[in-house]
């Protein structure tokens, strides 16, 4: 606790005895800034991936589609049969037949503007809302086979599961990236602190010989490196937030969520400079403790 207050308030006498070392100061601040910048990006990616996985999970888990392909002379009868079966099936909620225009809108991005989509022979699509645990799919498919052989029930699982897995995998990858960034930041700052401690070996020796306790010597280095990492982390975070805000939106095209932060998620990046400061605090203390072990 005492060390925390000294960190906040400062100890001018302890800091004055350690000369500023330009290279390690720059290394600490710059690496903290770079890592915070990367951390903000990776955090945005992780949160976006998590949000996307959740959206896909929620949006597709409670819907299914019945696709009906049949010759012209039986198509109407098969559609009516399917609607009747669905109406009688427990676990099936509202149903709605997609209009020809809706189907064309779905296909337009894939075929381009020059293909005469209205000339294509498209199957009839019925959107099905799932109630509770959903219908008995095997029983439903058996009834379709008997009464509407051109109907196929699709619960979206075939592509929903891999997409959700992919989004979750991306989130795990991003979280691993965050851990790696934290590790690299810690190691970089520890190396900078060790270099500074080694460069100030004579100062440390003299301080011990005139009666300085280890805590006094440690404070002189810890506060300096923690503040440098905090400042570097804050600068990197600001730049990272600006960069994330400038990433072009893609959600309007219906192919994914915007990379960035939503609502309270904007508070998460605040953790980046705090984490950089915390890592610097711990890394410098460890480096100082290791160096002081060599001094009588």
């Amino acid at each position: 606790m005492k060390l925390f207050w000294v960190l906040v308030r400062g100890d001018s006498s302890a800091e004055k005895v350690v000369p500023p070392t330009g290279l390690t100061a720059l290394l600490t601040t710059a690496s903290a800034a770079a890592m915070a910048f990367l951390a903000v990006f990776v955090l945005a990616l992780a949160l976006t991936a998590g949000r996307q996985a959740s959206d896909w999970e929620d949006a597709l888990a409670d819907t299914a589609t019945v696709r009906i392909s049949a010759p012209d002379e039986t198509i109407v009868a098969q559609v009516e049969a399917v609607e009747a079966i669905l109406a009688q099936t427990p676990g099936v909620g509202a149903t709605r037949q997609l209009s020809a225009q809706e189907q064309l809108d779905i296909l337009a991005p894939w075929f381009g503007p020059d293909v005469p989509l209205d000339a294509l022979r498209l199957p009839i699509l019925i959107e099905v809302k799932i109630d509770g645990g959903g219908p008995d799919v095997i029983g439903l498919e058996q009834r379709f086979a008997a009464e509407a052989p051109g109907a196929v029930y699709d619960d979206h699982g075939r592509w929903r599961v891999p997409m959700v897995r992919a989004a979750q995998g991306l989130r795990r990858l991003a979280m691993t990236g965050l851990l790696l960034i934290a590790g690299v930041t810690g190691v970089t700052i520890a190396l900078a602190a060790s270099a500074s401690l080694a460069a100030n070996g004579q100062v440390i020796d003299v301080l011990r010989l005139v009666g300085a306790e280890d805590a006094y010597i440690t404070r002189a280095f810890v506060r300096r490196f923690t503040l440098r990492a905090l400042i570097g982390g804050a600068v990197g975070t600001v730049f990272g937030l600006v960069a994330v805000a400038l990433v072009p939106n893609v959600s309007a095209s219906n192919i994914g969520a915007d990379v960035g932060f939503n609502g309270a998620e904007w508070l998460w990046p605040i953790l980046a400079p705090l984490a950089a400061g915390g890592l610097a605090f711990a890394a410098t203390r460890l480096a100082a403790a290791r160096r002081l072990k060599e001094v009588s």
Partner: protein
Amino acid sequence: MTDEAAIELTSVAMSYGGRALFRDVSVSLAPGSFHFLTGPSGAGKTTLIKLCYSELTPTEGRVAIFGEDTGAMARDDVAKMRRRVGVVHQDCRFIDHLNVSENVLLPVTVSGATAADIEANMSDLLGWVGLTNMADQTPPELSGGERQRAALARAVILSPDLILADEPTGNVDWEMSLNILNLLIELNKLGKTILCATHDMSLIRQAKTRVSARVLRLHNGSVELAGAEL
């Protein structure tokens, strides 16, 4: 001041890389005494001084300062013990980017004393060692004698009961040697225990005219008291 021996070495042995420097050294320095430690180069004068403030740990035996076994002290207790022992190192050991007054004040600043304490301690000290005009100089800007006097000022700023001086006149001329000797004698007259390592016998002879001093001679790995009071 305590009645315990200022320094007590009991059966102390010290080896470097298997080579024995001392064997079975036992010495006791009474509080308020003045001792010179002498012997040929390489006999171990500096090593013995370092044992007294725990910069080195003996291979065997016990070192006690005012009755406290330094080998049993925790690191923070060693730091506190060093504030009670003023040391003038052979190579002075300054922090080169701090000026003279900041270096002299180091024992005060690391002990957490207040600004008022610092002012009180500093008021006459630099004048006493004749460095009033050098307060803002950095150690590399000082001559050998000035560095030794600054080191002496730093050693006494916390008014320690024991002062260890390792060749304090090693790199200065005779006039400056006498100057430094006078300062040590003044401190001894104030009741401070002095242990001064030197190979300068004429300095010791000069001292005997002013103060009751004894000579500890390091020879062939043991310490012997060189005769009666000088």
